[in-house]
Structures are given as C-alpha cells and as structure tokens.
C-alpha cells in the first residue's frame, strides 16, 4: 500500500479548538486502534469524521466522550488538557453525543424526556408540569417537531425521537455535539430538518463532529473533514476543496495516480459459465431504511462481488437473501425455485448459506467444540430419530478438518479458543457440509492472518471452479477485484452500477462508489456515471 503521508495538511492552531486530541494512541489486546492521532473541532464548525471499518472512528469518539481513556496523548477542551473519567464527566463539560439509537425513555412523556434530570420545580419542590409542557413545546417547535409533548416519546417516529435527543443535548448547553450516523434511520424530509438544526447550531458557535458514511450528506452539511484509516489520521482539510473520488481514495487507501493508471489494467474477465442460467436471482429486495429494491444474479461458478462503502447495504443485501433479515418486498429464487419462508433455515434447505460478517457474534458458537460447530447446521441430517450419530459426525468433521487444514488441539477443543483464521475455516466447513448451491461470504478474510487469508481465497476460487455460485463482500478492494468476476456496486442501499469483465478495476469501482447520487434510490444512475480514464 502506498504511503499517503504526503496528503497531510498542516494542523489548525489549537487555541481556537473547542475539543481536540493530540498524539492520541489507544491499544486493545493485539490491536493498535489509534496511532498518534491528532484531531480537533472548532466552535462554529461542522467537522466530518470518516473512515472505513477498523479505521478508529468509534474509538476516537469513545475517547472524546470519556468512554475510553487514552493510552498516550491528551484530550484538550477549549485548549486546556482534560481527562474525562466517565461519559458523565464529558457531558458535564458540555460534550453531548447523539447515537444512532436514541437512548431516552420511550414510556415517559416527550416533555419529561426533554427535561429529564432538571425538571422545572414549582411549589413544595414538585415538578411544575404546565411550565414544563409549555417550555418543551416551544423548544421542540424550533426543531420542526410538532407533537403532543404530554404523550409518550415512544409514539413518535424515530426521526422525531432523534430530534428530541438532539434538543435535549443542546439545551444542556452543549458546546460540542458529536453525532454518530444520526441519519441512518431517518426519512429524507427528516434529514433536511436535521441539517437545518445542525446549521443553526454551527451559527450559534457550537462545534459539531459528524460521523456518516453517506458522502452526499457530508458534502451537504460539513465544512471540514478528517479521514482516518487503520488507526491513523491520513487527511484533514476543508471538504469543499476535496474531490469525491479523492475522498474515497483516501478512505480506501489508494493513490489517485494509481487509481487512474490502473483504470486501463485488464483482469481475468469472461467466465465460461456466463451463458448458464443464474443459480441465484434476487429481485427488488427492500428492507425499510436499509435496502431499496436491490436486484442481482449469480450464475453457477461465478464470483459476484458486492462493492460499496461501509453502510452501503452490502451486508443487508446478503442477509436479506439468506433470510436473516426480513425483506419487506422483493423475491429470491435459487436455481429457478422461489425461496419461501424468509428464515435462515429455509434458505439453508434451499442451498443458500451465509458466512456472516460478525464471526464472533453471529458465526461461532464459542462454548461448543470445533466438531459441534462444524456439525451444527447439519444436526438433523446427522441424526436418526433425534439421536445424534457420533460416528457420522466424526467422519464429516474429519473430512473437513483435513480439507480445510483446521488447526485445533483436537476436534473437541472449544471453538472460542481458536485463532480467527481457524474459526473462519470452521465456519466455512459448517457451510460446505450443507452442500450449498450458493455461498454468501461477508468479509471472509477480515481479521485473520495472512496465511489463512490466502488459504480462504484459494478455497473460494476452488469452490467457484466446481460450480458453486459465490457472492463476495470485502472491504479489501484488491481482494474484491481479484476475487470477483463481476462487481455489483451499492450505495445507500441501492444498486448504482455493475462492472463486468475488464471493467472490474479499482478506478472504475471507485468512480462508481464516489459518483453523486443525483437520482433517487433504486435508480441505476451509477452505471452511466462511471467513466473510465
């Protein structure tokens, strides 16, 4: 990967900064989450903080809000070094955080939520409800919320609830507001209202840190941008001067020159299976707020990559196909047969298996042994009259442990004790044992060592060569491009382009990812908008 230090921009003098960190380093066992990062936000500025998975955004936010303590470096508040021991200490200092999920009390009234902890008191120290309701209604009107402030908060829409959270944060005299993907569950109209509020905060001299993966939003509302990658700050500067393509290049760790030059490179293109009927066809898959009519197909022996930034809907797409996420519209056919049931069990029976992104939470059952993990999805088929056949499990497990070279002290070792690479192989073994027709691989090589990574990649090639249909998601651009015969590009939960054959290049892919969403979701606008140099 080329060095990108040259893209650094001189630091802003920190007297003007409302909140800043200097040389911040944070380690977790085996991981350097933040490596000597400098970051600062000024009063009256909306500062975008972006980066792909593992870039260190959430760690940085957690240090800023007192959830984590820095290992090295310091946090300064209005230029003075501070140590926020707890989130409450940060809040008292005037730093408010708005998370994706609203953390208020849904059963209490809107007004009470707004005033929680500092209700206006009347005679005898009792809450002065009429004053509280009047004030609440006034405050919320400024945020475009016209709701009964006496009603429970839970009855409002998510957008309105978020506005209440925001109003609450601001009314606490917040001087710094940190927003972590605030729009992920908002309707377009609500997003506009939110932007209005953000601009007003800026004009009132509040410093805003804005985290989002939606490039359109960043350009609409942010003044400055800081890009993190692999725990380092790779760029800080005014956003308006930064070309979209360059922003994407910074996030993904590619040089512009490299991108443009590689635009002409050819990769292995046509596949002999190209003429066959698709083994998987997804049509118009929709999930509220997450997917908007995603369609694509996979032929036997083909590896179809899903491209896009974090939050573009890649994971949601494969989850909807595998029945792990309930689709509100659309249909999936496997080898011409419509997939019914909408559950993972139904998908597995039909021959669709998903290797989930979050190996630890959704893949491995850590307390069970390696052999039980491998046999898990096959238990009914390895049993007779409800009794498990140990001999058949041993045979199956032996075969796969050898074929995938799974390193464990014994098949009875707990799966939770294995290395990441071996856990991933255990999961692959679990899915291959079900003899799938289509394998959905969500970040199959993330967080595993180089050796295991090469083995997994080789295995995927081998499986495809044997006629399996494969859908591949990877944040590693190189892996995606080299591994895929075709790449479907997603943005904001919709397909915006498709690259096939010699179109599958880094340059074309990044152009497609970066292109502005001028048209509505679901419209394949990116296809025409992905020019190559």
């Amino acid at each position, binding site marked *: 990967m080329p060095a990108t230090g040259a893209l650094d921009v001189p630091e802003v003098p920190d007297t003007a900064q409302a909140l800043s960190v200097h040389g911040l380093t944070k380690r977790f066992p085996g991981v350097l989450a933040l490596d000597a990062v400098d970051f600062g936000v000024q009063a009256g500025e909306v500062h975008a903080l972006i980066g792909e998975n593992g870039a260190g955004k959430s760690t940085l936010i957690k240090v800023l809000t007192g959830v984590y303590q820095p*290992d090295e470096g310091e946090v300064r508040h209005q230029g003075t070094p501070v140590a926020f021991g707890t989130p409450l200490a940060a809040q008292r200092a005037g730093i408010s955080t708005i998370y994706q999920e609203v953390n208020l009390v849904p059963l209490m009234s809107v007004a009470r939520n707004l005033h929680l902890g500092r209700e206006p008191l009347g005679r005898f120290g009792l809450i002065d409800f009429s004053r509280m309701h009047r004030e609440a209604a006034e405050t919320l009107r400024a945020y475009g919320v016209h709701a009964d402030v006496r009603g429970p908060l839970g009855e409002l829409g998510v957008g309105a609830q978020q506005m209440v959270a925001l109003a609450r944060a601001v009314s606490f005299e917040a001087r710094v507001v940190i927003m972590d993907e605030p729009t992920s569950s908002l309707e377009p109209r609500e997003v506009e209202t939110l932007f209005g509020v953000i601009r007003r905060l800026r004009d009132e001299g509040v410093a805003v840190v804005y985290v989002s993966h939606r490039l359109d939003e960043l350009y609409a509302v942010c003044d400055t941008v800081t890009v993190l990658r692999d725990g380092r700050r790779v760029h800080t500067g005014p956003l308006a001067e930064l070309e979209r393509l360059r922003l994407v290049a910074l996030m993904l760790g590619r040089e512009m020159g490299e991108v443009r030059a590689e635009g002409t490179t050819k990769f292995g293109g046509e596949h002999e299976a190209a003429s066959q009927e698709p083994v998987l066809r997804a049509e118009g898959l929709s999930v509220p707020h997450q997917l908007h009519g995603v369609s694509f197909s996979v032929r036997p022996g083909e590896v179809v990559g899903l491209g896009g930034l974090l939050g573009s809907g890649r994971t949601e797409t494969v989850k909807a196909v*595998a029945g*792990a996420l309930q689709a509100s519209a659309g249909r999936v056919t496997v080898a011409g047969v419509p997939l019914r049931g909408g*559950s*993972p*069990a139904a*998908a*597995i*029976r039909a021959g669709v298996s*998903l290797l*989930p992104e979050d190996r630890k*939470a*959704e*893949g*491995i*059952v*850590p*307390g*069970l042994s390696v052999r*039980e993990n491998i*046999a*898990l*999805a096959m*238990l*009914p088929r390895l*049993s007779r009259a*409800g*009794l*498990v056949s140990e001999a058949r499990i041993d045979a199956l497990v032996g075969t796969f442990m050898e074929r995938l070279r799974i390193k464990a002290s014994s098949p009875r070792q707990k799966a939770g004790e294995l290395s990441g690479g071996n856990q991933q192989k255990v999961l692959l073994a*679990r899915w291959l044992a079900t003899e799938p027709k289509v394998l959905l691989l969500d970040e199959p090589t993330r967080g595993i060592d180089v050796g295991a990574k090469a083995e997994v990649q080789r295995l995927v090639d081998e499986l495809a060569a044997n006629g399996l249909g494969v859908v591949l998601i990877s944040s590693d651009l190189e892996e995606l491009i080299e591994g895929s015969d075709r790449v479907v590009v997603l943005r904001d939960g919709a397909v915006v382009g498709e690259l096939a054959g010699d179109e599958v290049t880094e340059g074309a892919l990044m152009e497609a990812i970066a292109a502005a969403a001028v048209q509505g979701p679901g419209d394949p606008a990116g296809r025409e908008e992905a020019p190559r140099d």
Partner: protein
Amino acid sequence: MTEVAEAAGTRRRTGRERTRLTAWLQEYGVYAGVVVLLLFNTVFTEHFLSAENFRTQAVQVAPILIVALGMALAIGSEGIDLSVGSVMALSTSLVALYLGYGPWVALLVAVVGGAAVGLVNGSLIAHIGVQPIVATLALMVGGRGLALVLLPQLEDVRDPGMRALGSGDLLGVPYPALVAVVLVLLVGFTVRRTTFGRQLLAIGDSRPAARLAGLPVRRVLICVYVCSGVLAAVAGFLATARLQASDPTSLGTLMELSAITAVVVGGTPLSGGRVRVGGTVAGAVLIQLLTATLIKHDLPPSWTQLAQAVVIVVAVYAARERGKR
C-alpha cells in the same frame, strides 16, 4: 511503555492463577461441598449414618432435584423458569381432582397440565419474544391462581396406591428417589446425545449464530419449557404422595428459588450454553444436606436461609470469574 506492558503482564499472571482456582471451584466445588458436609455430619451428627436417615434425605431431595433438572434446561437455553413452583401446585390440585380414577390417570392429567403451562411459557418466549423471566413470572402468578380455583382447600390423599407411592420402596430405595434417578439419567442422555440437546446448548450459547445456522430456535425453546413444566408436574405428584395431602396454597412455594440455587451452585452458568446435570444433582443434594445439618443441630430455619445465601454468593462469584475469562 515497557513498564506498562510488564505491569499488565504481572497482572495477567496473577489473574490467571486466581482464575484457575475459581475455575476449579466452579467445576468441582459443589462436589467438594457435598463431601465436606457428609464428613461433617458423619462425625458430629448422631444417627446420620443410618439407612433411615438416608431414605428421608433422598425422599426430601427428590422433588427439588426433579424441578432443578427442568430449570437447568431453561437456564442452559439462556432462559429461566419461575413458574415451576406453581406448576407443582397445579399438579397437586389436578391429582386431587383425578385421583378417583387411580394414581396413573392422576399423574397423566398432572403431566398434561404441566406441559400446557410449559407450552404457554415457551410460546410467549419463542413466538412473542417476551423475556423468559417475565413470561414465566406471569405463569407463576397465574398457575397458582388456577391451582386454587381447581382446589380451594387442602384435601387429604386417601387412595392407598398413592400412599404406597409416597412411603414405599424398591429394594430399599424409596420410590420418589427412584423416579428422580431415572429422570436424571434421561435428562443427562437428552443433553448429551440428542439433536435437541445440542441445539439447546448452541441456542443458549449464541442465539444469533444458532439462528443463522438454521436451527429451529422457536421449536427448541418451546420444548425446553414444556420439559420444565412436565418435570415440575412430576415433582408435584411425588410431593403430594409423600405429604399424603394436596395443598395448592403452600406446595412448591419458593421452589423456583431452590431449583435455581441447585442449578447455579452446580456450575451451570446463568449465561446459558451449558447444562451440568451431575452438578445440578450435587447442587440439590448440597442444599438438602445443608438444611438437614442445620436443623439437626437445632439452629433456627432462618440460619438455613443465611447459609443458602452464602453458598449462592460463592457460586455466583465463581461463575463471574469464569465469564470474564
């Protein structure tokens, strides 16, 4: 920087030693506790080593043990079943009402009643998504209410067959203890050797992973609570036979707590994914022996409760250390 690393290293080392101790405690502590109490009583309690005393203890522990088996399944699935005591009460009411048709019919009706409660519990949890503690709390309250509607006051058992069940034995082993042994073996076999058992443990350990692996999560959860209900009904039947009376007001009160104690003390983690049948047996025996010891030494019942509290705290402390590892 190196100092920090070294300090962390030392901390980790001593931490590991402590973890090893608590892991041992969690794994075998309950058996050690049983042995200690047996030795103590052998030396200090009169007439402890008599066949008569062992029979009494066995008959008394049987209902707790049987209920604890079902509780172990519920806890292993990352749930809990608070309704077991009320199911025992429901069971005793049904036994009183149907004993006229003979003990076997009464048992069958009681078991169907327990299964029905379990079915409601399981459906609330698996289909509607109610938290196990809430769903089974509702049935805990409602179950006893239903039991009292069916049988408003205490009724003596006059059926000779039923009386024989409560006091008779086979080769010196009292019937209730015999039933408990059979059920222990049955549940042990289910956990270890059946598809249901494996699926239960996977669901208890990681529900999202189990769901994505295509496991019939709902069906397994419903089965768990039906099993728990049936076992509690059997325990209610045996307790009725031993007491020779049906008393839905008091039978099984606080039984859910005794059962949870037996399971937790036996080393089954509350976080699910593991069911220790042997440990649960030892846990139930430990509580029984503890109670018996204190009573035999003329200490008031409040002491028993305090002693139980200490045992629970020690067990939960050991479990906590394990969870951290």
